């Protein structure tokens, strides 16, 4: 499988009469976008706001973040099985808006939606403080059942991204990357002297606000399977979850999976990147046992010498992480774990809910319990009404001037557990 990813750099976003890209600036026709989102009768209102890096702007409660991408050559559409027919993707050519994101905002479904500050101390922790953001603020119908509201929010973001992506059509990429993975035996033969490595990608699949979709299939219904890494760049995986904001793998982060990106950077140099094993994090022990067995079996079957292993969320998924690590190691594949830590506000408790001795090489994505101050911002996109309830906040954490204190786990993707950020924790 071979995919060319053409990046069109976007350095600013403005409202305009026509949705188009001119000289690296995206112009958005807000009325058209709004009308499109409101075709969903589960929503009664929608407005579009823009946020730029460095502005005194706070966006919350954030549900998902998505990079607009467009399939320009090859079969299928971006977000197959969700925004169009379900056709295998990952072949041909795809364009993306590099530096621009759609941010879905709306009152909370649960407690798990997060905060993006475009400047100030919290901006240091958030990847989306550095992107141009088109915020789609939605208002659901009164009394919408929570699962239905989650779905409406998810679709609003994906529709908006798909709409904006059309502006990529006749653009010339500023930069092009080519990714290629051959069928197993050929791939093994291509770099016979390099270690064969893979990636075990654990998809969050615990139910409401903790779901992920693979080609439109709810990930809790899958058994572990193999994927060409290129498929993910075309949106084969989308986020339907909000877990804790800090380690939410947004749809943006699926499109930009850092483990896959960095394995490709070393492909043919220090590693032979063979492919991706997808598994899930279900709520029944039987599933956890069965799927960690299968994951380790696939590693063995593919002849992998090493794998990277990531999870989404914390708490009981730590058990899936440890079971995968333990069984895969015992079957002869070396494992490096990437995850984030929750050792309490004083940093003195155990960082993970479960541990095993095989997890002897772990990369940390930081301590999510650290408390920081969020100063008041000049402009608010969304509402701060729920800050005290959102994960990372507490009753009394908010001040009258709009500032508040909270654990950094309230910030979207601040400690995302796949190594996207530079944040790390160490022992003192």
């Amino acid at each position, binding site marked *: 499988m071979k995919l060319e990813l053409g990046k069109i750099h976007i350095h600013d976003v403005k409202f305009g009469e026509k949705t188009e890209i001119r000289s690296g600036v995206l112009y958005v026709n807000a009325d058209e976008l709004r009308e499109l989102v409101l075709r969903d009768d589960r929503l009664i209102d929608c407005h579009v706001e823009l946020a730029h890096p460095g502005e005194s702007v706070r966006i919350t409660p954030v549900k998902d973040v998505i990079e607009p991408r467009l399939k320009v050559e090859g079969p299928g559409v971006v977000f197959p099985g969700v925004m169009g027919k379900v056709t295998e993707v990952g072949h041909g050519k795809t364009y993306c808006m590099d530096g621009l994101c759609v941010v879905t905002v709306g009152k909370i479904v649960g*407690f798990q939606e997060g905060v993006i500050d475009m400047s100030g101390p919290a901006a240091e922790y958030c990847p989306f403080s550095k992107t141009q953001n088109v915020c789609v603020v939605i208002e659901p119908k009164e009394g919408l059942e929570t699962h239905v509201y989650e779905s409406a929010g998810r679709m609003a973001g994906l529709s908006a991204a798909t709409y904006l992506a059309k502006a990529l059509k006749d653009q010339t990429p500023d930069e092009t990357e080519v990714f290629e993975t051959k069928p197993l035996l050929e791939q093994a033969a291509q770099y016979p002297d390099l270690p064969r490595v893979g990636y075990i990608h654990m998809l969050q699949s615990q139910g409401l606000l903790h779901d992920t979709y693979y080609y439109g299939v709810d990930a809790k219904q899958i058994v572990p399977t193999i994927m060409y890494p290129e498929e993910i760049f075309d949106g084969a995986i989308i986020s339907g979850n909000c877990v804790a904001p800090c380690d939410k793998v947004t749809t943006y982060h699926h499109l930009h999976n850092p483990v896959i990106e960095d394995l490709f950077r070393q492909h043919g140099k220090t590693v032979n990147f063979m492919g991706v094993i997808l598994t899930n994090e279900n709520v029944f022990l039987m599933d956890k046992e069965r799927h960690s067995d299968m994951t380790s079996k696939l590693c063995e079957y593919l002849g992998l010498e090493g794998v990277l292993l990531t999870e989404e969320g914390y708490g009981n998924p730590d058990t899936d992480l440890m079971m995968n690590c333990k069984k895969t190691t015992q079957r002869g594949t070396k494992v490096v774990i990437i995850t984030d830590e929750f050792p309490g506000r004083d940093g003195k408790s155990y960082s993970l809910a479960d541990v095993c001795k095989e*997890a002897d090489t772990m990369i940390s994505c930081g301590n999510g319990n650290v408390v920081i101050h969020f100063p008041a911002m000049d402009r608010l996109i969304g509402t701060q009404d729920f800050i005290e309830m959102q994960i990372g906040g507490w009753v009394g954490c908010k001040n009258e001037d709009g500032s508040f204190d909270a654990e950094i786990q309230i910030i979207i993707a601040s400690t995302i557990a796949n190594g996207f950020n530079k944040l790390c924790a160490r022992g003192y």
Partner: protein
Amino acid sequence: MICGDNYFGSHIESGVVDEILELIRPLSPDAFVAGPAFNAGRYGVACGTMAKAVQDALSIPVVSGMYRENPGVDMFRKDIYIIETKDSSADMRNAAPKMAKLLKKLVNGEEVLGPKEEGYLEKGIRVNYFNERRGSERAVELLVRKIKGEETYTDYPMPVIDHVAPAPPLKDLSKAKIALITSGGVVPQGNPDHIESSSATKWGKYSIAGMDHADKKDFMTIHGGYDRAFITEDPDLCIPVDALRKLEKEGVIGKLTDYFITTTGTGTATNSSKRFAEEYIPLLKEDGVDAVLMVST
């Protein structure tokens, strides 16, 4: 200050700590050094005990020094700075300057760097910093090293978690008073004590007196770590008041307490959980509870 290990060890309960504190207090020290104890176990425990006591009572910087396997290390590393020494006093020449340097920094309020830089035994406090490279890039490199059999590292050494001996069985279940505790986040409607949905810092004790089941009119769940739809509809799925009441009536158990104890388990720090237990155990004891049924989601 000189005190023999044996004297210290055998007089802890009769107040040797306070005795020494009262000798130190009039001197109004700016800092306090205990040891180094190297690998002398009882001496290590005495150094740790006194250093922590001085730190707590006088609020001044303290430093000790010990060999990694000294039992005083595990007891006090989270509370005080312990410079790592070798296992015998032959290492004094190395240990003393490190202890002096660190103590000086503490007294002057200068930034204390990590355990490697300063030479102290890790206190087990997880502190954030920004690495030069992102995690995924470091992970790929680490994996290659691991496969090649080269030297590896870990950002987080897996902890050894302490276990307790099993409690002896109940003599007679039909006479036992049973309490119900959950980490499933079930609370009275409205969450009166504002227990957090994740990383709880509080627990609650709520009445189930006179209830033959846990009704959704009375209870809700605020747990942020699972799909709450089922327990919202039927709280007995998490706090089985209905089944326990039936067994109480049948005489299988003696009595169910008039209350249950609850918190949110997800993301909750183990030290918070420990504190919760230390807070509610005396209440359970006072109430004559014989055994606890704990339910986790």
